[in-house]
């Protein structure tokens, strides 16, 4: 009898568990917010919860002031810190997503494919957002299957940064390390590197693997993914050759293991950085590092150029951020208005003014901001105050690179694709596989993930 009662109680408990499990899910993927009416002249009210945007520096706060003034009675609340995808997913799963999301542009495709964020066509039309002003590659990054899911802002590009003294001592120039002549770059790496008994004391050239493989492939005229975001091209000849070359640069200097150990031990953000201490010949690096170097080691013997294709043309592989409106947002109208104002030319002008004032106060030159908005970029380039070489050359290279950007197209399996690609490169760097073998395997994994994700997106599961 007692056992019967216990069994019954257990059954009720299990049933309740299953019932509750049914109740606890199903809040995601809502279409809440799709009934919103976007109108740039409308009076707005309510709360606007923003996730992923810290808003701590003058470039953020000056634009926020403008956005808040245009939102009228809307009460803006920032959720501290950068986007934590777990936090966002938890909020979505519990039916309480933020009103607005600030994410990396390469996350937009996956979020859009899963219905976590809203298409922005109505928002763009209603608020009158000038999509034609955005850097084309930035807009492509937030456009999935022809639909825009994010309002891009900022652009990150790579420059060739080099130590002019080390180049000169090796009888080389910046042209030898900007990627236009790959053979020369390999030779420069070997010429500038110093290796003491297996330990690398001076890195000649750091080809910045695994993260910059897509850049090197693009510089050789290829791409790691097709333009429509449906086909992985990791086992293409161009990809394999680019990886072989970039890995060989490490091999010429004692191997990746030794170079990474030296790289990890460097004072990257301090006055003792690798360029200031003459322990790095050259590397491609994002433009924000130019500001760091200018600030912490203004006397470092720097030389700058864009990264160049094998044909000698400037090229960069762009990234950046984007505003997106989560499905189920409680205030999509305010979210759209915020995204429009924050990325407007007026806002960027205010940000540049604030940055110029601060840099003047600190006695430092203003090296520009890449906004993701071509009109704003043009205006801000004219406000830069870096008049002396080498920093003026760095700024010029930055704006040149900004006009020659490529990106990966938005796709519904960006995390899986990146993971497969980087894992392949890491296996080669760690000596566990040859480039062709590793990339062939990555191709299979990445293509399977893309096929599955596109099939799910198109309901052909």
């Amino acid at each position: 009898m007692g056992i019967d009662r216990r069994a019954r109680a257990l059954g009720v408990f299990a049933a309740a568990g299953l019932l509750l499990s049914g109740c606890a899910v199903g809040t995601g993927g809502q279409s809440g917010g799709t009934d919103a009416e976007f109108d740039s002249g409308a009076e707005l009210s309510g709360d606007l919860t923003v996730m992923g945007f810290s808003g701590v520096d003058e470039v953020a706060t000056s634009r926020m002031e403008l956005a808040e003034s245009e939102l009228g009675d809307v009460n803006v609340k920032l959720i501290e810190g950068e986007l934590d995808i777990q936090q966002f997913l938890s909020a979505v799963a519990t039916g309480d997503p933020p009103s607005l999301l600030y994410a990396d542009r390469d996350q937009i495709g996956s979020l859009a494919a899963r219905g976590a964020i809203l298409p922005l066509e109505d928002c763009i039309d209603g608020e009158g957002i000038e999509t034609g002003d955005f850097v084309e590659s930035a807009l492509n990054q937030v456009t999935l299957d022809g639909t825009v899911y994010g309002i891009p802002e900022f652009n990150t590009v790579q420059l060739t940064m080099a130590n002019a003294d080390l180049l000169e001592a090796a009888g080389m120039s910046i042209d030898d390390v900007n990627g236009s002549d790959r053979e020369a770059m390999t030779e420069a790496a070997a010429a500038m590197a110093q290796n003491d008994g297996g330990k690398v004391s001076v890195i000649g050239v750091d080809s910045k693997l695994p993260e910059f493989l897509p850049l090197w492939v693009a510089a050789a005229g290829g791409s790691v993914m097709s333009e429509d975001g449906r086909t992985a091209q990791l086992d293409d000849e161009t990809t394999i050759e680019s990886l072989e070359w970039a890995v060989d640069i490490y091999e010429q200097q004692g191997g990746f293991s030794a170079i990474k150990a030296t790289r990890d031990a460097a004072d990257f953000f301090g006055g003792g950085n690798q360029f200031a201490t003459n322990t790095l010949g050259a590397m491609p690096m994002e433009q924000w590092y130019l500001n760091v170097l200018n600030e912490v080691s203004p006397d470092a013997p720097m030389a700058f150029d864009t990264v160049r294709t094998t044909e000698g043309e400037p090229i960069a592989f762009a990234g950046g951020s984007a505003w997106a409106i989560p499905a189920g947002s409680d205030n999509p109208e305010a979210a759209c208005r915020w995204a429009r104002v924050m990325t407007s030319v007026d806002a960027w002008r205010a940000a540049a003014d604030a940055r110029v004032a601060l840099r003047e106060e600190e006695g430092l030159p203003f090296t520009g901001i890449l906004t993701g908005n071509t009109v704003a970029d043009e205006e801000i380039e004219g406000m830069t105050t870096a008049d002396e070489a080498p920093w003026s050359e760095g700024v010029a290279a930055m704006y040149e690179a900004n006009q020659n950007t490529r990106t990966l197209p938005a796709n519904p399996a960006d995390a899986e694709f990146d993971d497969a690609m980087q894992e392949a490169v890491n296996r080669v760097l760690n000596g566990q596989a040859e480039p062709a073998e590793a990339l062939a395997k990555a191709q299979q994994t990445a293509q399977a993930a893309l096929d599955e994700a596109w099939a799910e997106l198109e309901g052909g599961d």
Partner: protein
Amino acid sequence: MTTATRPGGVSSQPDDSKPPVGGARVAPPTGAAPRNRARARRRNLFSALLFLSPWMIGFLVFTAWPMIYSAYLSLTDYDVINNPEFVGIENYVAMASDEKLLLALGNTAFFALLQVPMYVVVSLGLALLLDRAGRASGFFRTVFFLPKMTPPVAVGVLFLLLFNGSNGIVNAALGMVGIDGPSWTTDPNWVKPGLVLMSLWTVGASVIILLAALRNVPKELYESAQLDGAGFWRQATSVTLPMISPALFFIIVVNTIAALQTFDEAYTAFFGAGNSTYSNDAALFYVIYLFQQAFEFLNMGYASAMAWLLFLVIMIITAIQLVVSRRLVYYEGDR
């Protein structure tokens, strides 16, 4: 109350046909006593449940419910954003052909096999030293325990600095005795041994448990052993080890489970924000792969199935340890 009671606590039934023995007064046959006892039992049960309720609620909400729910999710295709779609045992079938899962299992097993014995040996060695440290024991006990307070994420970062193949302090120390240290953080062959060495940083808690066990060994046993002519080694194997075997067993079980669930340090060092692009297959432990599936690829159903596989593996290993312990662990209270 003067009711007579039989052994076992069952009260005797009064018999009206016979006079009370020795003239003792017997309670009238009202049935009040059983009712009172039942009421008292209910009160006791209620009090017990009341005191237990914080734990029970915590257990139900934070352990039982998530376990039941994850078992359900393991049978679904669930991306956190959209509703779970029932797929039966598909996730479990997919696990069988997942090469990365097998790699992660292998790495985790290798790590546990290397880490647990080293952890126990180092803990025991330090506890033995502390046992002989006299007055300084308290100071060193605190010193050994302090690293346990360090956040695992900080330990992960420290690992990269201390074990840096080029400028790390570990290789510098090895260099002083003529050993050319390996590339601990980049050479796949040395990543796991490096992480094992780094994990020894936190032996403090085990040291304190073993020290307490060592101090509980009765001195008379050593005196008797000495009288019987037992030397240091014989005393250690015939007196010390059997007497502290329950503590050793506890440490082995707990650390085996912890090793099979290792995550924080390796994730921070090889997969976290500071190292978001460079990773190392050698550091892909099971829970790291589970985390990637859940929160990077949003395969929450598959990750749930992985969690249940790990639960099963840990259950089996712990059960084996319990069976083996019956032969090797000595409990004083046992006959």
